[in-house]
């Protein structure tokens, strides 16, 4: 256990030293929040009601999809994997450590937004904080699991970036965080339902806790975890 805990703490430090993680988990979400928060609340005053949720979804989607895959590629598509295997460290450790560390980073950043949004833009605290945090935690887990698939399946960082952006852009554009999804053409509304961000945002903005928007997230999570297991096995086999 002490090896695992040391690994978690070490990965946390490595992420702080890595510019990619700092930029994707903290710098870009904060800049986006500063600029778009001002624009949203000026153009659409009603957006104050859901500003915390929309900024959280943006942060989680960006941090997970853009931030995590390069860390996994660094471990599994390089000679780092050899060093782990040669020294008796199970390859799954890298996946666990990077996910746990990214999870904590994203949770912290979301909490920062939760605290400063009301002060900075008079954003409204979610009416049901419990629902918000359950949705947030679930969305982080789902987004990281999807990002893990990219990180384990793709062989280099150039391709992970391309794939991550291909998932990230529609996730933010179609999930309803930029503008209400009922303003979108029906085909885009349907397409939006392919992305976890849509379900996560819908759940976090619900007035009552219902399983309707949470179940799809769990389904994606289970499928993604199973796929990660298969991909990990493929990476392990020489």
């Amino acid at each position, binding site marked *: 256990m002490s*090896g695992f805990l040391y*690994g978690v703490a*070490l990965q946390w430090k490595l992420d702080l030293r*890595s510019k990619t993680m700092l930029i994707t988990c903290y710098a870009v979400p904060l800049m986006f929040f500063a600029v778009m928060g001002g624009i949203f609340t000026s153009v659409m005053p009603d957006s104050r009601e859901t500003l915390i949720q929309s900024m959280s979804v943006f942060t989680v989607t960006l941090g997970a999809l853009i931030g995590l895959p390069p860390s996994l590629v*660094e471990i599994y598509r390089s000679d780092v994997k*050899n060093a782990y295997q*040669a020294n*008796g460290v199970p390859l799954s450790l890298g996946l666990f450590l990077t996910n746990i560390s990214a999870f904590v980073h994203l949770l912290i950043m979301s909490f920062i937004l939760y605290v400063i949004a009301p002060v900075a833009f008079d954003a409204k605290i979610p009416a049901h904080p419990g629902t918000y945090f359950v949705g947030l935690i679930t969305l982080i887990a789902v987004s990281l699991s999807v990002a893990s698939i990219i990180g384990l399946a793709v062989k280099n960082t150039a391709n992970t970036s391309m794939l991550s952006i291909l998932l990230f852009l529609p996730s933010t554009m179609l999930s309803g965080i930029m503008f209400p999804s009922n303003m979108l053409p029906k085909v885009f509304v349907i397409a939006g339902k392919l992305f976890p961000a849509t379900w996560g945002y819908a759940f976090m903005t619900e007035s009552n806790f219902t399983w309707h928007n949470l179940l799809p997230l769990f389904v994606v999570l289970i499928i993604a975890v199973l796929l990660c297991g298969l991909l990990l096995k493929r990476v392990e086999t020489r």
Partner: protein
Amino acid sequence: MTDALQVRGLRKSYGKKEVLKGIDLCIRKGVIFALLGVNGAGKTTALECIEGLRKYDSGSIAINGRMGIQLQSASLPVHIKGIEAVHLFEKWNKVSVNTSMLTALGVDNLANKQYQEMSTGQKRRLHLALALISDPDIVFLDEPTAGLDIEGRISLHEYIRTLKAQGKTILLASHDMAEVENLCDNIAILKDGRIAFAGTVSELTRAVGKHYNICIKTSQGMEKFEVDNIGESLISILKGYHEKEIEIQDIQVNRGSLEQHFVKIARGE
């Protein structure tokens, strides 16, 4: 079992290509053993199968003791510091690191240096230290001195001899014949997926034949001869100089380098 390692009938294919065609190896405890072979001979595959990093098709591998593995192609996360890597593998393997080993390898100086800031030699030393963290009985070293400067090579050779003195068995893969000749007690040469030779360096020399290099320095310059029968050949050569009344200043006779013998075996000459 008094042997450190026993390999019997090891076979491995990649698709239809059979890379290892039934390898037998036996390595005694406490020796430095070199596995040699030209590129594509199956050396890395054999090592990886023995190390447990690669699945093999058939055969058996028995290892007597704990293994420490230093791979030629190993890396660490770019931002990890030397001491953090040591602690990670130390804690994961539930062992206490021998600080004198870290000092002897100069890894204590890398404690606060990030992996990306280390030179090739420093990285090699760190990986060797990581391989030795669990105080292994048998140490696998794949091209341990590749990329090291002369000073680094000498200090690493000294450390490998120290490991041998501690009773550890070392299995070395190297392209550096001088290194192998200098360090190793036993060698095996892999050729086309089979062991073409196994024994000591002097046994290899005997196996290849009574091949001698004679170098004679005279007042007229240097002449080199390659002969098989040293006695008759040397007498005949010296007689020739005597008849021509050429003054001989120096004579050197050697049995050829390991490299020459290796090339003969590897080429099937």
